[in-house]
């Protein structure tokens, strides 16, 4: 018991709550990641990811879980509204619970996200 108390003291700054529920997504995330990676402007295929509104059930998973904050809810449906910051990681096509709701492909060659190298 004493050990448990001691551990509690040591790790009082560790925020366990952050492991549950949507907390860091959308505008907050976009703000945090501003300038932390580079995306070359996409000209021919600016909308390389599309959400089919007829198939989207509005669960919001892509909005909460996209690591770049590309998605937002509009009228109860997810929209890939911030494609300019997409990392092309492919995450959204696997979190979506609806078949073919997210139409996923790459932008044209030579554009899109690139590694920022210091």
């Amino acid at each position: 018991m004493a050990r448990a108390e001691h551990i509690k003291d040591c790790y009082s700054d560790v925020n366990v709550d952050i492991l549950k529920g949507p907390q860091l997504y959308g505008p907050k995330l976009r703000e945090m990641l501003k300038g932390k990676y580079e995306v070359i402007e996409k000209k021919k295929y600016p909308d390389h990811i599309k959400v089919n509104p007829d198939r989207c059930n509005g669960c919001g998973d892509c909005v909460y879980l996209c690591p770049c904050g590309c998605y937002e809810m509009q009228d109860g449906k997810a929209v890939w509204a911030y494609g300019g910051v997409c990392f092309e990681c492919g995450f959204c096509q696997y979190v979506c619970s609806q078949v073919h709701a997210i139409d996923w492909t790459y932008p044209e060659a030579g554009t899109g996200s690139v590694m920022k190298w210091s």
Partner: protein
Amino acid sequence: MSQYDYDVIVVGAGPGGSACATMCAKKGLNVALVERAAVPGQKNMSGSMLFLPVMRRIWPDVDDAPWLYNYPTIEGGDMGFMADDGWSFTLGVHFGADIIYDAPMVFRNETDQWMAEQAVKAGAHLLCECARDLIIEDDFIKGIIVDDGKKITAPLVCACDGFNSLMAKRSGLAPVRQDRGGRGIGEGITQAIKYCYYMGEEKVASLGTAEKWEDGHYHDYSSMPVWSGIGEGGAWTAHALAVPARGLITVAVYQHVSDLCKSKANIHQRMAWFLSIPQNAHRLEGEELTYFETHLLTWERAHAVSDKTYRNGFLLFGDAAGMINAFDGYGADAAMVCGIYAAELAEECKQKNDYSENVLSRFEDMWKNDFIGRNEELPFELGRFLFEKEPDAGEGLRDVIDACMRGKFAGDAYIDWFADPQCISGMLRIAPQLNRALPMLVPMLQNINALGTNLLGGLING
């Protein structure tokens, strides 16, 4: 005059693609290496170990490459397990000094560029195009369709275009994960996120994890201190990588996509939590995030490989075929070996003028008989050892280590640098699998001394 633009089209200039293109070019084939990034490696989001024994088979002068500057050591290592509140214990393992020279830590955007350059030097044509579709005629694949519907033709297409492979989907050979086929959302897929901090060479070196040796290379004592845990947000794994030569610290966190979906917590939240752990917080205090990267991988899923990896005029390998080692998450070495085999078959096809499955079906035997196929079975072996032998936990752990050494590291790719059966790396790399067995592990660790091995098991509070 051939009716085709090229003898072979290789899609994706990663390790597998560049290996394949280099070998094809060396055999005198007219080969195109198609890469969607303006500079190969530019799109690459990963960075970790590469295995020189495999690379020497393709590029004999790899030891002189400019990106060789950081070597992990096997002098000692830590395998840590951490609870949600930050409570942790570490298994420190020391087998005596023996340095791994053949598995450098690399940044893949440097190495991929180098590998593609080698392919070009060998005679491959590097094209900056995004391969979107395949040309299929009479069940034979005869080339690719790139942006603006432009066609590039060849009697053989070797596709190794990564985890989100478009070629795998178009060919109908995609690994299971891409059709979802009744499985849970995100199951078998892991998301990796990496935060990189630029601190300058001096400061990174001062952290004491790496030192510069007389040979000019940094030797890193904690390149991969692997932390794992399972709790509120699901199972996770993390490691930090110091690269003094580049003045960088990289913190990487891996979490299952299915767990992220359940908890609705963005992977950045897991990273924020990990960074708030005192051990990390004090090292990174006052540092500003320089850049971040994220990518997907298959991890902890055995038999993720496509049911079939060939078609008439088509070969599929690397991450695109799910050839990520379910055991430790590495895939570059498997992709490179497949690249070598694909080039051998390409040569044979040209000689026989037969690009059908009659010749290409041998591809599967080739990689399955190499270490890639054998790796596939290991997670099962591991599970069997851990769970079936649970009553005798100490025995189980020893068997696990044995299995690592005999099975995984006996492959061609590893035989050189894992020749020492007491290699620590095996221990370090099984951490993600072991974390699943966390409740059992404590009695196991307590038994370690009784095993008579020279493992130094230490339960360290905080």
